């Protein structure tokens, strides 16, 4: 197994909630509440969860686009959170991000060439403007776009083309890690496949590591080496992709998998077979955070917070069902599938 490139430990990003006359902080939205993650060189880790579970915040916190309150983000052994923003720049070159909405993530007033070259310019890659343009052409070819896209504006491109530009922009600074924040969710299914293939090829060619953030489990099945499932700011289960898909340990993961074919977020709720909405991240339920919606809840779930238990089949799950000391209970028959 290769060396750890990114190690996230106990990451906590809370957003203050202010209220009243004096705008006092009366609480926090616990968007990310103690997340551990490891991404190794050349590996793909998928972070999966419903919208609002804090997975995007994890991505942004790693890049320090949000300011985490606690924890550490070690990149290549250096804690990014302890770095002054001046030092941060060199690490930003090594980590890049691809956003969900390719239209929103591309400045509509800039041409493709400038969009892609921007990062190179700020990191001083590629020499003068002419050299940079040449490099942009190379990059375009690498993401399977023609050189004649060079002088176009984002609104003149299709969705898939735009996302390729987004990827090219990320690659332009020669990163080691790319965080793909729902990078394909906004695209048609056929284009999704093209982009996923492209990402796979690039990974092989450039030995990239991906942190692939998505709500759609099906997307990561063939791409990810490892999957981490997030619920209400915490990782509830993680393990090798194969294991997760074949033998999900956590009831939440089971629910997600059951709902996977459906794209419609509302129907997914129903399919999950759990009642009620996602609880507010400002006031997460006591005990196990999932107990309000879990079909397998028992007393202990309401009282204690489950730690991550090692699963027999590899990986970890935040569920008392995996507690070796927990007396086996008559299992409520799990869903078929």
């Amino acid at each position: 197994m290769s060396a750890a490139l990114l190690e996230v430990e106990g990451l906590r990003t809370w957003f203050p909630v202010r209220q009243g006359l004096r705008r006092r902080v009366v609480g926090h939205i616990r968007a990310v509440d103690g997340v551990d993650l490891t991404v190794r060189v050349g590996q793909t880790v998928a972070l999966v969860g419903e919208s609002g579970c804090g997975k995007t915040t994890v991505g942004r916190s790693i890049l320090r686009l949000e300011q985490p309150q606690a924890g550490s983000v070690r990149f290549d052994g250096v804690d990014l959170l302890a770095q002054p923003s001046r030092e941060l720049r060199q690490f930003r070159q090594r980590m890049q991000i691809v956003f969900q909405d390719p239209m929103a993530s591309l400045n509509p007033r800039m041409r493709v060439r400038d969009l892609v070259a921007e990062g190179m310019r700020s990191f001083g890659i590629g020499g003068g403007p002419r050299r940079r343009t040449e490099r942009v052409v190379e990059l375009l070819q690498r993401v399977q776009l023609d050189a004649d896209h060079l002088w176009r504006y984002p609104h003149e491109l299709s969705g898939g083309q735009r996302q390729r530009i987004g990827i090219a922009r990320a690659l332009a600074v020669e990163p080691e890690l790319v965080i793909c924040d729902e990078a394909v969710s906004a695209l048609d299914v056929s284009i999704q496949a093209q982009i996923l293939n492209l990402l796979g090829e690039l990974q092989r060619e450039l030995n990239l590591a991906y942190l692939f953030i998505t709500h759609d489990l099906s997307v990561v099945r063939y791409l990810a080496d490892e999957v981490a499932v997030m619920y209400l700011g915490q990782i509830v289960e993680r393990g090798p992709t194969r294991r997760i898909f074949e033998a999900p340990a956590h009831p939440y993961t089971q629910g997600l998998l059951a709902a996977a074919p459906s794209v419609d977020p509302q129907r997914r709720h129903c399919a999950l077979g759990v009642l009620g909405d996602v609880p507010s991240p400002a006031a997460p339920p006591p005990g196990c955070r999932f107990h309000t919606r879990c079909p397998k809840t028992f007393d202990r779930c309401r009282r204690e917070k489950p730690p991550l238990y090692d699963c027999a089949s590899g990986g970890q799950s935040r569920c008392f069902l995996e507690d070796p000391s927990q007396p086996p209970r008559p299992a409520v028959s799990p869903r078929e599938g």
Partner: protein
Amino acid sequence: MLAYVARRLGYGVLVVLGVLLLLFVLFFAVAKPEDIARRALGEKARQEAIDIWIASHGYDRPLWPWQQPADNQLFDHYARMLTFDFGRSDTDDTPIARRLAEGVGPTLSLTVPLFLVGLVIALLFGLFVAFFRDTYIDATGVFLCVLGMSVSLLLYIIGGQFLIGKLLRWFPISGFDPAPVVVARFLALPVLVGLLGVVGGDVRFYRTVFVEETGRDYVRTARAKGAGEMRVMLRHVLRNSLIPVMTRVVLAIPFLFVGSLLLESFFGIPGLGTLTVDAIRNNDFATLRVMVFIGALAFIGGQIATDISYAFVDPRVRLE
């Protein structure tokens, strides 16, 4: 909710304090009391009289609290304005509060009809133009609006007095009299002229709002259900455009109290606008300061009222 109202009010108070500071800097720190005194006393005033005048109006005291913490003009300014003790006019020593009380009637008697008639006409015309959008009526309407907005009110007044007052003799050219029938005669011409100046911009605004609203799905649904065109416009479009319309209307209300400088002074209506123009002409800073303050107060009050009423009315408006 209560906290929101309280906070909104608190911010309003803060802005009022800011406005007062600005006024103080403008009228006290920059302007010289000697100028005002000379203007008030007339050309033959001697230095002695000027000094007496300045002292009697308290303009000889130190301006800032750091010069003299106990008795300075800044604190005095705040104390007076915040207690609505407006003092006396610099030109003729009449209590400003009394002049305000006298002026508010004539001003409202001009601005309220102007506002109401203007609103009705602008809404109707806006609906009308939106109804006939993309026809020559629409194009002509928009052209007329831009036309209306491109002409100085001064020209409208001069033209109106000349045409309607002098040539057609419909109404008195200018003047005012509180007697009920006569007052309508006096107000007719300024209201007509004022409409020309106001309606253009309003119609254009309302037309945009209405056209935007007619493009929405529910309008299409209503049409599909076979509702008549008139009914669609009046029941659906008009009703759903109420929020932007209300905003504009509520924001206009404070200006009813300020009055129109040009209209009032040209038509000889003894309202607050005339009061302001006189204050400007005479460098009567005491009055001008009060007028600006009142205008700001009305505006701030209007804004707070709008914000709070939104919070009650529109579920989409977040209180945070």
